[in-house]
């Protein structure tokens, strides 16, 4: 399991637009670099990210090699109800990680 940092408020007012910042520990190996012996290092990147709020897709991203190491993605969502946000990353070599956070809406 890669390390993940997710920043979002614990609670929000109904209808408030909240910022969500995510950081995933991942090499994002571009497939362009060579090792000390001159061999190409195979590509190993995160290709897909999504955020579901109580099951509904609220944000997604298709990523490619120009995304920097340890992909950082920040976006917004509307606080609609107290619920669970599920964050999912998928990538090369079967990489898959899921995290969830609760947002309390007052």
């Amino acid at each position: 399991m890669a390390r993940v940092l997710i920043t979002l408020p614990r609670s929000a007012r109904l209808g408030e637009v909240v910022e969500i910042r995510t950081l995933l520990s991942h090499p994002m190996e571009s497939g362009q670099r060579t090792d000390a012996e001159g061999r190409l290092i195979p590509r190993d990147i995160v290709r897909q990210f999504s955020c579901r709020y109580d099951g509904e897709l609220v944000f997604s991203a298709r990523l490619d090699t120009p995304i920097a190491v340890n992909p950082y993605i920040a976006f917004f969502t509307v606080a609609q109800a107290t619920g669970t946000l599920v964050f999912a990353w998928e990538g090369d070599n079967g990489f898959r990680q899921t995290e969830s956070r609760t947002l309390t809406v007052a």
Partner: protein
Amino acid sequence: MSVQRRHVLIAAAGTLALPTARATPEAMAAAVREFTGGAPVRDGGVLFDIAPLVENGNTVPITVSVDSPMTAADHVKEIGLFNEMNPQTLIAIFGLGPRAGRASVSTRIRLSTSQKLVAIAKMSDGSLRRHQVEVLVTIAACTEG
């Protein structure tokens, strides 16, 4: 480039069908066409926020914001980011909707050299908006062996 490295590269390119070493302005135009479907793109309404002078191309903070009320009737559906000179011209495609509340996305990218970048927003009414920027890169990414 040593003969050995060249052989390795040719072999790798042959077996893995790797992208060419560098994209071109034409490749960016083609990738943009694929995203837009060839529909007309209007300048304005999008802000591609990036430092005009990038000291370190390995990690470049960017924010793309689109003027939109983000309602069910009028919102941003997708934002595509493209570059002209990296090995890969597509940077990312972000999927948004009325549940986003605000059409603004931040990330960090790599830039191999000074070049043009473009952000294109696909709106819910099918229209397309664009902001093109030009950046100077002092230390390039992707070059370290």
